[in-house]
């Protein structure tokens, strides 16, 4: 193969810089350097303005354990992640099953369910704020008080919006999974006397485990990082009861001007998310079977 020819060091450097240079320079400038600088920031008490910052060692991390607001927002985010993952994937899977079972207008429906994904979190939040505050309150089947003015209901309002948005996206991936299962396996199982439910549970689901791995990872990480929709739908209210982790970190740094603490919280948030994502990927990848 030609690329195994001997190349001079100077040529290697030139080629690398020419091709990977632009991408990698930007990546280093805006990801690697800030990431490392961010670790340094966690050991200072910088407010973002003053010209001096004091080095405080691991004091910020020690303080995080006493930050009740931070942990309550992490716990809230956890519950939000669990609820969203269950509803988004449950509904997306059900829809994918429906849409691949030979019903009419499949392509049209698939495009329709996907539509909410075209719209950003900010606009989605405002659309639903109107629905919750102005439309549902006038309907006799809902209470007169808006969902968004009650802490528990506001939490579920966020889950509803996320489910409405993300299920159409995951639907596409589940449909690809359904279609990817060869009809031969289904046929063989049917000849062996398996009923529809057994075919779903024992044949289809194990064979489309890769779709589950992807969808769970995507829903998990998007729910963890939720910010835009949180901001426009509830703005953390009522009384800060729906302030998710991303919003808490943002406010700590930019509203209360505590870059040191804000960044420490961001690092802890990152580590928590990383652990959860790795566990999820391990668990579901292990169940993937090769056809």
């Amino acid at each position, binding site marked *: 193969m030609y690329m195994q020819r001997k190349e001079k060091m100077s040529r290697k450097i030139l080629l690398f810089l020419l091709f990977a240079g632009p991408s*990698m320079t930007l990546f280093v400038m805006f990801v690697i350097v800030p990431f490392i600088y961010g670790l340094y920031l966690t050991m200072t008490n910088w407010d973002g303005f003053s010209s001096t910052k004091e080095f405080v060692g691991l004091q910020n991390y020690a303080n995080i354990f006493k930050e009740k607001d931070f942990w309550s927002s992490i716990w809230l985010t956890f519950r939000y992640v669990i609820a969203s993952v269950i509803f988004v994937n449950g509904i997306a899977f059900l829809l994918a099953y429906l849409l691949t079972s030979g019903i009419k207008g499949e392509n049209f429906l698939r495009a329709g369910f996907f539509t909410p994904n075209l719209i950003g979190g900010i606009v989605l939040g405002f659309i639903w704020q*109107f629905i919750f505050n102005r439309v549902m309150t006038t309907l006799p089947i809902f209470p007169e008080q808006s969902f968004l003015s009650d802490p528990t209901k506001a939490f579920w309002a966020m889950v509803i919006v996320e489910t409405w948005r993300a299920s159409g996206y995951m639907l596409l991936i589940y449909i690809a999974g359904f279609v990817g299962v060869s009809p031969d396996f289904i046929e063989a199982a049917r000849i062996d006397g398996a009923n529809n439910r057994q075919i779903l549970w024992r044949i289809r689901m194990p064979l489309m485990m890769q779709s589950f791995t992807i969808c769970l990872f995507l829903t998990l990480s998007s729910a963890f990082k939720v910010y835009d929709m949180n901001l426009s739908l509830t703005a953390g209210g009522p009384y800060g009861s729906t302030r998710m982790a991303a919003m808490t970190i943002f406010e700590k740094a930019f509203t209360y001007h505590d870059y040191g603490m804000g960044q420490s919280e961001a690092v802890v948030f990152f580590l928590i998310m990383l652990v959860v994502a790795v566990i999820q990927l391990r668990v579901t990848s292990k169940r993937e079977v090769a056809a």
Partner: protein
Amino acid sequence: MNELKGSQGSENIGASARIWSGIKTVFAFLLFVVYMVPFVLVLINSLKQKVNIIKTPLKFVDEAGPQISNYVDAFNKMGYFQAFGNSLIITGCSIVLLVVCSSMCAYILVRRNYKACRISYYLLISYMVVPFQVIMIPVLAIYGNQFHLLNNRLILIIMNVAYGTGFATFLMYGFIKSSVPLALEEAALIDGAGVFRIYSGIVLPLLKPILATNMILQTLGLWNDYLLPSLVLGKESLQTLPIRIRAFNGTFTSDYGLMMAALVMCVTPIIILFIFMQKYIVGGIVSGAVKE
């Protein structure tokens, strides 16, 4: 995307199966209607007077006829034209740069086994598990507080490339590895073509499908992006649609007619794009996700 067409029900024969399939169709369409309700409500109310929105949000038309004035007012008051232009420039430039840089980067990472290539690859794919929140504060501290580079469209475009390049390179890396035949490149090499010539003349044209996938995924993400643009673009004349709609909501929070019209205007461009590009978008999402 015809291969995505369902094939499950083909074995069902008989009247009861047909009824069952009818029930499923009706159920799916009912769910579809439920999904569409929020859009319809925003659309019908965008053409009504404030009093009537509050009194009867479910009514389809205003007694006084459709209030086109909501759109005119919202268009002017939110500076729609400018915000739309900003969104367009920022999204467009970011995507072109991103696709060019990432495809070149992916090419060298696949075709050369330098140590620098291997390290770059691992760095780029690790970024996929890093939430933006952990980069956000130091980025502002460095490029805002110290170098004063914010409030500039160009810096946002560059940042978009930096944050998109991990995923974009990863997608193209997989594509080049699996679908670009090495034999073609070897033939060109024997004919005396240089590396850059091979990339631009042979590899790049073969990358069209994955370039389209990347462009689609990035368009949806960047057009709707809020957090990073809101941090970088403080100056009003530079702001994109999502930032402007939030500011607009702050000012005209109880002017429901205006707000609904503004929302419709924000959503329309991307919906039009979707209608024309539907096939590619759906295909792009699936191929992008399955590679992940």
